[in-house]
């Protein structure tokens, strides 16, 4: 799946159908549109309510040129288009198509609407052919369900569907066996800005545990991250929970064997969960032959599953299945990673599939598919304090703290303005 880069901040969304197709009954269209929204409510906490007046998503069936600079082309060809959240979320359907309901004939309204609403929610086209978010019309499917790819995409934006049993501020990461599989439910920190990472957001290392938690290490302390801030009850002491592990770690990563590796100076440690996994520390030169001491950062890159180490202006690729594990063509300049600076502090891949590079008090989001730092608004680097740690006001001198800056400078946004969508910017956001 691919994420466009914006999403709705609110989960209770409203919509209206401003223009109906001429050959279908309005009540039938209403029902199909609601069914299409329900595709996405089945896997998230999103709700969609029809309403008059100003709404989040406006739906229109239009012919040809219809005011947004992206005219429809008559029967066949382009069937519909929709705008990403930051551009309004509206969905337009080509009124000249033979729209149909529960039929193999014509163009099935439900299928197309469900796809378009994926865009309205922030999903781009997927290159997984069987996914709903693949760009080509798939025809009528009487037993439709979302593909895993679509589910992972929408949940990367809005989290998994939760049981509505009230707020959950639980923090079970320090209790062995306490993991219940619902750890990634977004939780709101009551006082999210009350932590020292806001004063000095530069940190040592960041990694995802095998259980799916994201941890930030800095000096002797560590924090667990939630979807948009730090979890309550942090920081804690590294030495209290990772017994035997020192502070001021240089680099870390969790490998596909589920074990987490920590690097400091000339040594490294391997942990399974929070238990040391053997006799450690060991020498980097022995366990990771070809990798230098005193690293800046490390990660497992999703592009090929190999381990990457970063130091100064250079990087090394380590493949444990090869001999030697580091090819003679390494190290290479970090400038090969388009847009990524030298002298990094940390790097990791987050659960949304992007790779994030951190330096000083800012970060860069790297798009593995395009192999470059994302060109989006606000631009990267962005403030780590604001976007990762939930600090209300980032320290002065950081950048990218405005979630709406730059929205009016690109082509798609100006199209949206021509169309005159009644769109409330405060309900959308760019995400980290």
């Amino acid at each position, binding site marked *: 799946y691919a994420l466009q880069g914006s999403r709705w901040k609110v989960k209770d969304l409203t919509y209206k159908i401003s223009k109906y197709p001429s050959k279908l009954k309005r009540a039938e269209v209403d029902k199909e549109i609601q069914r299409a929204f329900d595709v996405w409510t089945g896997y998230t906490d999103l709700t969609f309510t029809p309403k008059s007046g100003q709404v989040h998503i406006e739906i229109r069936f239009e012919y040809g040129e219809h005011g947004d600079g992206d005219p429809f082309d008559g029967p066949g060809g382009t069937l519909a288009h929709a705008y990403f959240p930051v551009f309004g979320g509206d969905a337009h359907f080509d009124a000249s198509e033979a729209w149909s309901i529960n039929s193999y004939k014509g163009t099935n309204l439900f299928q197309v609407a469900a796809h378009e609403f994926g865009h309205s929610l922030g999903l781009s086209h997927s290159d997984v052919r069987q996914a709903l978010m693949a760009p080509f019309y798939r025809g009528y499917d009487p037993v439709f369900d979302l593909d895993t790819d679509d589910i992972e995409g929408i949940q990367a934006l809005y989290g998994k569907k939760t049981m509505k049993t009230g707020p959950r501020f639980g923090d079970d990461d320090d209790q062995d066996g306490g993991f219940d599989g619902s750890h990634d439910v977004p939780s709101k920190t009551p006082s999210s800005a009350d932590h020292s990472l806001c004063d000095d957001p530069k940190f040592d290392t960041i990694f995802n545990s095998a259980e799916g938690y994201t941890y930030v290490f800095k000096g002797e302390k560590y924090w667990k991250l939630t979807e948009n801030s730090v979890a309550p009850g942090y920081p804690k002491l590294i030495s209290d929970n990772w017994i035997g592990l020192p502070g001021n770690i240089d680099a870390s990563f969790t490998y596909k064997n589920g074990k987490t590796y920590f690097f400091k100076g000339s040594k490294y440690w391997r942990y399974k969960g929070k238990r040391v996994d053997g006799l450690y520390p060991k020498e980097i030169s022995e366990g990771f032959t070809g990798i230098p001491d005193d690293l800046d950062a490390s990660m497992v890159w999703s592009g090929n599953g190999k381990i990457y180490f970063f130091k100064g202006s250079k990087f090394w690729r380590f493949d444990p299945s090869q001999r030697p594990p580091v090819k003679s063509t390494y190290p290479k300049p970090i400038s090969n990673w388009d847009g990524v600076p030298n002298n990094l502090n940390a790097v990791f891949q987050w659960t949304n599939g992007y790779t994030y590079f951190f330096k000083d008090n800012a970060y860069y989001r790297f798009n593995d598919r*395009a192999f470059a730092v994302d060109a989006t608004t606000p631009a990267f680097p962005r403030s780590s304090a604001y976007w990762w740690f939930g600090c209300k006001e980032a320290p002065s001198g950081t950048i990218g703290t405005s979630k709406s800056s730059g929205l009016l400078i690109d082509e798609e946004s100006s199209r949206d303005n021509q169309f005159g969508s009644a769109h409330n910017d405060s309900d959308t956001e760019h995400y980290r």
Partner: protein
Amino acid sequence: APSDSNALLYLSQFGYLAPSKGNSSHLMDEKTYRKAIEDFQAFAGLEVTGELDSDTQKTMVLPRCGVKDKVGTGDNRAKR
């Protein structure tokens, strides 16, 4: 089936090629064109040949969504 010129329009419309500017003629080298076709073939799950072969032509005339497959073509996101 789309001709080369229609394929060019298609590839521009859906983000595989940078759109041409206004009324100026757009001269494009073959390598850029082949790369755009390859990108499209890879995205659509076709055999990647770089040629406007029959499978690619058939896919280009399928009904589809009007949103670009590659949002941001023309900036550095499609560089590699």
